[in-house]
């Protein structure tokens, strides 16, 4: 219990620090959102529009940084994250609500599949080391893990979608068709296959290698030899004894990765013109859209912190030793 309380205290403190940095950082960026907006029009707007835009964005109100900071906390607790400047006058919450399902669907699912597949393959390749299968798995995993993601996804888009026309060239579903609900679900799945595959292949290698290495060192431990000597089944030794212990370090990485899902995947979204948070985050940064930027970073920080907290929690269940650790 003490362990959990201490983790909770730590969570609150890091949460406060992360959110305060989240407030300060955007204000340190050079530039003025209204100027950015007006310059985007490349001379089609009258210069007087600068004032009009500043008025519309509420930038003319002269407030001290401290007052803004207090208002920021107030906004966080009231759940009103203000207006986005890039998508003005859409509310930040609306912009996010539209993109989050796509991101969680694609990047979240991709991360889970990659972790599960990678870990399973890692277990197998460690268990069957020196077999041809394991020998192929490791260099393959290394190759896909180190290949530039942008390049791989462009190549797959060009070959599978453009040349062979097996998959659509982009988007989350067929936007020009008028469809019933099931057709739409089918269309969404069809459009997700290619981007999902790229995420899974590139992310899987890392999990595979980590798991394989952990498995190898665990398999050399005395208690495994003891378990063998007891005559336990291979299956039981592999999963209950070895994998359960070997997965612990991977697990921390996995919870971090889940936290970062909220950030979306900019490259996937750009290459496949897929809806999601990554592109919105990028847009908000280049157009100095403070409210939107802060909201996305807020969710990323919260997701990472919560995922870490959950990991600590589950860790304590998987490995009871951590509860006593350091006391």
């Amino acid at each position: 219990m003490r362990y959990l309380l201490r983790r909770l205290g730590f969570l609150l403190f890091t949460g406060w620090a992360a959110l305060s940095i989240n407030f300060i950082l955007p204000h340190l960026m050079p530039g003025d959102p209204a100027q950015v907006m007006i310059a985007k029009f490349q001379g089609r707007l009258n210069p007087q529009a600068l004032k009009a835009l500043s008025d519309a964005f509420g930038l003319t109100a002269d407030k001290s940084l401290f007052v803004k900071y207090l208002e920021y906390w107030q906004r966080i607790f009231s759940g009103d994250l203000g207006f986005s400047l890039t998508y003005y006058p859409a509310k930040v919450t609306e912009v996010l609500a539209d993109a989050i399902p796509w991101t969680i669907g694609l990047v979240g699912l991709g991360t889970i599949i990659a972790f599960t597949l990678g870990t399973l393959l890692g277990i197998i390749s460690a268990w069957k080391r020196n077999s041809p299968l394991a020998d192929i798995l490791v260099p393959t995993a290394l190759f896909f893990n180190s290949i530039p993601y942008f390049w791989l996804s462009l190549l797959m888009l060009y070959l599978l979608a453009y040349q062979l026309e097996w998959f659509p060239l982009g988007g989350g579903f067929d936007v020009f068709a008028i469809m019933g609900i099931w057709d739409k679900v089918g269309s969404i799945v069809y459009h997700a296959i290619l981007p999902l595959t790229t995420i899974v292949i590139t992310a899987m290698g890392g999990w595979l290698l980590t798991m394989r290495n952990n498995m190898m060192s665990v398999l050399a431990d005395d208690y495994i030899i003891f378990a063998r000597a007891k005559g336990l089944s291979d299956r039981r030794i592999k999963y209950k004894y070895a994998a359960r212990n070997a997965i612990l370090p991977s697990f921390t990485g996995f919870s971090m990765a889940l936290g970062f899902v909220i950030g979306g995947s900019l490259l996937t979204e750009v290459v496949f013109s897929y809806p999601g948070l990554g592109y919105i985050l990028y847009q908000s940064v280049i157009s100095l859209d403070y409210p939107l930027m802060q909201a996305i970073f807020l969710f990323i920080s919260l997701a990472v912190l919560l995922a870490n907290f959950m990991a600590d929690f589950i860790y304590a269940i998987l490995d009871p030793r951590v509860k006593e650790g350091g006391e």
Partner: protein
Amino acid sequence: MKRIFTIYVMVLMLICTVGLVSAEEVRYGGMVRIAGQWGSLTNNFNPFLASGQNAPGTRSALYETIFFVSPLDGAITPVLGTAYQWEDNNLKLIIETRQGVKWSDGTPFTANDVVFTFNYMKKHPALDLNGIWANDVTKVEALTDHKVQITFAKPNTPLFRYIAHTLIVPEHIWSEIEEPSTFTNANPVVTGPFVKGQFSSQAVIYQRNATYWMEDKPYLDSVAYQAAKSNDTALLLLLRKKIDYSHLFIPDPEKALVAKDPTNNKYWWSVTNTNILYLNTSKELFTDVAFRQALAYAIDKDPLSEKAYYGVIAPAHPTGIIPGQQPQWVNKALSGQFYSYDLEKAKDILSKAGYSWDGSGSLIDPSGNKVPPVRILVGAGWTDFISMAQLISKSVKGIGIEMVIEQEPWSSYINSLMGGTYDTAICWGSGSGSTPYDLYYRTLESTFAGQDDGIAESNYSRYSSPVIDAALAKFRASSDLTVQQEAISTIQQLVVADVPYIPLTNRANFNDYQISRIVGWPDAENPYNGGDPGDELGGRLMLLNIRLK
């Protein structure tokens, strides 16, 4: 004069109603699919917002302006207005509005809607992005239900284009909207050729307006705007014929687009602006006219067009005036002063002004110090500007000047330009319009040079000259072409002699399309919409004229 304008407008009206599609049988129906790098669309059809904040199509398919003024040559197409004239020494603008037009909810459109729209912008200054009320307009009133009078405190005839390009909203809907700048207008009531259909953040589809005021148009049943997140996706979609049109820069379009299907793939890159090398005249080095002149002679512009734009977009005229406007506005009597690449001449100007060169060929200023390296600012990752900057720095080595390329991300790039912390910078003309006035007004008028608060809204060179300010005022006060030509002539003479900035290449709109399904696109032979992007005001004319093959 005013009579001539009215006749001009009437003739154009005739051309527009009869001209474009005549003998051949026209096929109705079908959908045009347009993709653009909009990223993610917002369910917002508020026409007062800057484009990009509302969904694409708001300014082309849904709402209509009073007139459309071509950015190429200033040709005027009537829309909700049918004729206009200046009266009372250009202090009054009278606009006749179209009769028989209905809003998409059945309510008749009248001059009162026009008056309401303008007064609404006066009440809510945040909507007045074109600065109509900030520029001498004092009163907008309806004389009859199809005649509007706009009164000016002092003449400002170039403001006509901004007035003409105001999207008109229905009074009976908007008079009840209290907070228009945050109103998303999810169910737009419009006069335009299309009405809103289905929306998602990835695409918006518009359906034909059954009660549109042109009986025979539009030809299409629907228009779809699809949001792509990168130019690569848009290009692949176009090449695979999944879309019909995109406003998209393609490196080497002859090879990357046309060669893939020469019968169907086309592009029309219409020149509407100029890329300029701005010289920060508030910096000591650039206060010397001779130095600026020498730079102008030392930059070879042909390679810029060849390398940065694959020869598709030509080098700019030294006056900065775009090709479509040159016949009317360039003063040929000045052609002897128009500079071109000439290193000897550049060196000659420098040595006459007291500059010299040291043993290694570096430039030494008149007081004997080595001229420090000159920074040249471009946006980070903007390949066309970066390759121009490289060629320029190579070019000016010819007169012993060292140039350092400085890349900055978008927000700090524009901040450096407006804040005046740069040395030289490549950027587009901060103003462009139907006459060179727009370019000169925004790039040279002293009001925008940041003299008041340090922020140069559009006169990035921070150059001010009473002669230019007076010439701009003379242009504004007149609706007589000869007087206006004189004013422009005065300015262009100073632009080439005093070199406040150096025009580099033309700047174009990138219309790329394929004609396997849909024809009738604007092109160089028939530039009926000035080459405006398909989601901008001129896009409306495109949507009205394209049709199934």
